[in-house]
């Protein structure tokens, strides 16, 4: 036990500052009012949906929870049920098997809600595209508010996409390092 505590004290706080989100990065979300977006931006809950991805994007998303990217320090957390969620983070080219599940997840999330598609598969269909096994980009199945292209996109880009979706503007302070 003492070894663990000694290690914690030795390492200290290693969180890197959050990415700066310019207005150009921000998604143009017309359907939700800005003050609602401000409130969501302060306390966002995300439900991650793997709609047939290869798990490459999932590895990058799970890196967001480590001390370096520290998504929790920005007031954002991942939750277990779409009923508790404000945002769906969808990866993968929506395989036929997951199409109905994705629709139901979207239906089960209370309004106001946002959807961010992560990865090339989620944005454009990627190398799988539309076919007998997949439906292509996530926007083919549920309405998408922001996209984060990349295969897989680095965690910083995913974070920029999430923050941009809630239009977290320049003025918002990032948490201090101590």
């Amino acid at each position, binding site marked *: 036990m003492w070894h*663990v505590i000694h290690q*914690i004290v030795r390492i200290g706080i290693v*969180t890197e500052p959050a990415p700066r989100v310019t207005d150009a990065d921000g998604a143009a979300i017309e359907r939700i009012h800005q003050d609602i977006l401000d409130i969501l931006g302060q*306390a966002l809950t995300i439900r991650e949906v793997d709609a047939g991805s290869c798990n490459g994007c999932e590895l990058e998303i799970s890196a967001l929870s480590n*001390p370096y990217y*520290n998504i929790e320090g920005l007031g954002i957390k991942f939750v277990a049920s779409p009923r*508790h969620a404000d945002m769906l983070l969808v990866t993968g080219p929506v395989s036929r098997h997951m199409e109905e599940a994705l629709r139901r997840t979207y239906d089960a999330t*209370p309004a106001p809600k946002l959807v961010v598609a992560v990865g090339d598969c989620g944005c454009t269909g990627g190398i799988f595209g539309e076919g007998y096994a997949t439906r292509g980009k996530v926007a083919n199945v549920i309405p998408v508010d922001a996209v984060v292209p990349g295969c897989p996109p680095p965690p910083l880009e995913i974070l920029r996409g999430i923050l941009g979706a809630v239009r977290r503007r320049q003025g918002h302070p990032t948490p*201090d390092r101590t």
Partner: protein
Amino acid sequence: MTAWAFAAAQTLLFIAAAPLLGGWLQRVKCHMQNRAAPAVWQPYRNLAKLLRKRMLLAENASWLFRAVPYIVFGAMLLAAAVVPLITVHLPSAAIADVIVLVGFFALARFFTALAGLDIGTAFGGMGASREMMVSALAEPAMLMAVFTLSMTANTTNLSVATEYILKSGLVLRPSFLFALLALAIVAVAETSRIPVDNPATHLELTMLHEAMILEYGGRHLALIEWASQVKLMIYAVLIVDFFFPWGIATDFSALALTIGLVAVVAKLMLLAVVLVVWETVLAKMRLFRVPQFLGFAFMLSLLAMLTHVVLETGG
């Protein structure tokens, strides 16, 4: 009449401050995990956001499902009204003594379990069944520890008991040491902390408390989350009151109240640090190891009672 006004004000302060304790707990936990923490008032933002969400209910949710968050919050509000936070001379403490306090927790738990069973999914049933098992095993340990304390102070009224312990000065009672350990273990089990339950888990098979509230959203979820934060604060304040009551106000003068406030804030902050270190160092237990853990708590409280009877009251 002023005493009642103070009691009402203290209750409101209790309810309002509970998310702050949650925020401080989160902050210390993040620092223990080498990460920067969100602001201490982040839980308030969470609650405000939840209140702005639109309500979404399952098709077969009954009136009971919709009523449960209010019942749970009401029970926690009543419990907060009877626990001395800043001052001991509370007229509201006569409404309910420590056994009724346990009854309030049981009421909240009963209805939450029913809400879990209401929709008819397997998660809710699993959460309800596990939660009732854990609470059934925790209750004898808790009541035995509480009995030891009540027999020492010859009362079950929380205000009077705290005052008695305050007045008897810095006395080391071995029975109190065992009772403190037992009560701490029961508090961990009842507030769903590690090692009994992981409050931040996403895996339904590892959930106890969270599984019962998977269907809730919006303002219902806000009430339930707030109520669980109040419950954690109540257990913390109980431990502080029974075992470390020094500093609590015994009259209504401004100086005494300020000292009382500062004292309880400092003690709660320290207790939160102890809880976080405990949670960081331990891992969550398998479900069927929890009965052994709670059986250990029962042994401790039994020891507390025996040492009280044998050592402190002269055989």
